[in-house]
């Protein structure tokens, strides 16, 4: 009786380690399907985890309170002013382009978070860390490693005051 049970156990593990080639292909393909499905479960879990993180810890779109960031008359064409919006931990840059229009962007490079600087001669915002360039009119990356645009700060000009009123991500 004990010997029969042992033979049955032995036959069981031998099923997954066959000698016959055809049987071996059968087993490896079956196991491959199982492992791929396990990978699929892991990927679904990770996507769900990202959704949970976004739901509970995602940042709400900034906006609301208007913050005075500078005086329009004090910024010449090609000039720039640094300010922080919406919190003290969010550095931003206000630039007046060659067309005379005021625009503001986050100063944090979308590549590796260095601070970008305004280069009016080239008409762009330059990241000195890895030589990334952004268009000063739109914030779109034009050269170097950055692939995402700089978040734009919505502005309102009231009288001579320039106010930041929201952030577009």
């Amino acid at each position: 009786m004990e010997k029969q049970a042992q033979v049955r156990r032995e036959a069981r593990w031998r099923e997954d380690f066959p000698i016959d080639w055809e049987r071996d292909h059968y087993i490896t393909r079956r196991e491959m399907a199982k492992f791929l499905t396990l990978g699929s479960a892991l990927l679904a879990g990770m996507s769900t985890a990202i959704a949970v993180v976004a739901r509970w810890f995602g940042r709400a779109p900034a906006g609301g309170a208007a913050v005075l960031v500078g005086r329009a008359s004090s910024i010449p064409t090609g000039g720039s002013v640094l300010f922080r919006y919406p919190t003290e931990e969010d550095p931003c840059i206000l630039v007046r382009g060659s067309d005379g229009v005021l625009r503001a962007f986050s100063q944090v490079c979308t590549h590796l978070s260095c601070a970008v600087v305004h280069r009016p001669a080239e008409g762009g915002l330059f990241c000195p860390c890895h030589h990334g360039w952004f268009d000063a009119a739109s914030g779109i990356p034009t050269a170097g490693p950055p692939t995402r645009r700089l978040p734009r700060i919505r502005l309102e000009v009231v009288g001579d005051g320039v106010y930041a009123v929201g952030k577009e991500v």
Partner: protein
Amino acid sequence: MDAPRQGIALFSAIGLLIATLVIIQLWLLAAALDALLGGHVAVVLPAAVASMLLFLANGGLLLLVRGFDRRVRTAGADGAAGSGVATSGQGSGEPNGPS
């Protein structure tokens, strides 16, 4: 065509299908992560739902694999019981591949 050969063809096709769906899930994960870091939170939930649906599809395909494998095992056990020999085709321990 005998059962193992049918199984090889079936599992290869199903494996290919599952691999394709897994690649789509990888793309969804990368897109969701990029959206999260970029602040586009609205994209993340549909990506997670789509990934879960793909996983369910993969689970269904795996059930097909398991069902087929169970039938093969049952048929093998019945055949062995009828003939009084050990199951699994290599229970004797002797190689029967190409020599």
